[in-house]
């Protein structure tokens, strides 16, 4: 089963922002917007909810901190206590540097990995790129199922240089 996505191509940042807002306000559902670089104000124009990536980062950071603390506590207090400079086996300040490093490492790597997975950017990904959106074109994709003919009219009216239909697996 496949469905048709409507694509409108634009040649400037202002037009794509304007058209994105217009398509949404006309009641059509956006599939996505593709731009060669991050366009300021796009989140707002698309009506996106705040990213959930921050929670991935927070969770991974907490996991890193917990793992680092538990590992150090287990190894230096339970499994193999060593007397280092007469300090107590459970010496909290000594555990902080490793916990800090693992918190940062887990948070950073997990966030990047989660982003790449969510955006389907990994080796073997079958995701196709629209022509020229990595170069000098901005593209709005309108989700299948909406009134595509009416949406096409809105895109044209807001300065689309070209429109097209692309079949996607639904």
């Amino acid at each position: 089963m496949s469905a048709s996505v409507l694509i409108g191509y634009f040649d400037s940042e202002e037009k794509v922002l304007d058209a994105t807002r217009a398509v949404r306000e006309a009641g059509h559902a956006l599939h996505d917007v593709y731009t060669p670089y991050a366009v300021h104000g796009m989140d707002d124009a698309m009506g996106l909810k705040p990213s959930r990536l921050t929670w991935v980062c927070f969770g991974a950071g907490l996991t890193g901190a917990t793992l680092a603390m538990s590992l150090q506590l287990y190894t230096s207090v339970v499994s193999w206590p060593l007397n280092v400079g007469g300090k107590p086996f459970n010496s909290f300040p000594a555990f902080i540097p490793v916990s800090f490093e693992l918190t940062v490492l887990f948070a950073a790597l997990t966030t990047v990995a989660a982003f790449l997975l969510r955006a389907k950017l990994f080796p073997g990904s079958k995701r196709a790129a629209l022509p020229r959106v990595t170069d000098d074109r901005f593209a709005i994709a309108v989700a299948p199922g909406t009134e595509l003919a009416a949406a096409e009219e809105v895109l044209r009216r807001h300065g689309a240089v070209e429109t097209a239909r692309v079949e996607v697996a639904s």
Partner: protein
Amino acid sequence: MSSHVHEAPPAGSSGGFEVGAGVRRAALVAAVVGLGTLGAGLALYPERALSSLLTSGFLFLCLGLGGAVFLALMYVANAGWFTVFKRIPEAFSAYVPWGAAPLLALVPFAPKLYLWARPGVMETDHLLHKKAAFLNVPFFGIRMVLMLALWVGFTWLLRRNSLKQDTERTEALTKRNVATSAVFLVLFGLTFCLAAFDWLMSLEPHWFSTIYALYNFAGLLSSSVCAITVAAILLHRAGALPQLNTSHLHDLGKLMFGFATLWAYLWFSQFLLIWYANIPEETAYFIPRMHGGWAVPFYLNIVLNWALPFVLLLPRPAKRNPAHLLRVAAILLAGRWLDLHLMVAPANMPDGAGLGLYELAGIVGVGGLFLLAVTRAVRSAPMIPAGDPYLVESLHHHT
């Protein structure tokens, strides 16, 4: 807080923002009453009054210097986002010549505050007598005068070039400030180290820590970004800065968050090495601070300066909410005072000294002086630097 962009006012349309007479009168009364109380304290309890003067004098001088450092960092980075509120750090930097006075006032009373300045100490103390060539009152005073003169000169130059641009409208003035800032940052890095060692670390002349100045520098950055944020929000609320938008606040919030964490990193770097090595000549600094009357403020310091701000500023909406930023900035500024109080006061009051009359007098008195200088600077120059080539970029700032 408006998120849309307002038009810049026409060139040379206005003088500065008229800060309410009530605020100025309150600042004057605070300065007179606070400094007067400290003056009386000199006779009654000199160690405590002088400790308070040093703590508050240094705190507010750092806010003034922090304004100039903030500007210099932005200039050398060719940043444009801050231009809309650059008159605030400039007004802070105008406090530097005023802020020199409380510190210079300490010099004649050095023996009450500094162990090394007391007669007979250097000759009999084996660990100290080799430091006598450096730690003596005349040389201490000369160093202080030279450092303060250098800072007054540079902060004056940066602000003058910026104000001149309001009428001259030439890019050359921005370029000149970039060059001035680069030189200032290098010289400031060196002289600020010396100042932190001289004025604060030498309170305990047997003890030393090489990271001490950097740790103080992180406190300077954190507290001055907080003060800039507070001033920006208050001036916006008073209608003086309608162009300030949520994105400017968001970036200031990020800097508060980042510098608070830098402070924690450096605080801990100093603590960890001393705790680990456990050498008596180094632990002598922490032992009185971690026990007895100083124990509670010692742990509270980390909560106020890092733990609370870190948690409170972590979510994105928190950094975009002016009321929330005001609260966190207040916590961090209180934390900065406590941090300095913990550096200064235990040297002469090892059993503990809370937030008493003299401490409040110092904060209110020097704070009043700071407010007087800053409101005077705000009134004397237009709020929006109409001739700055980065102004348009700043008005459209969007994160």
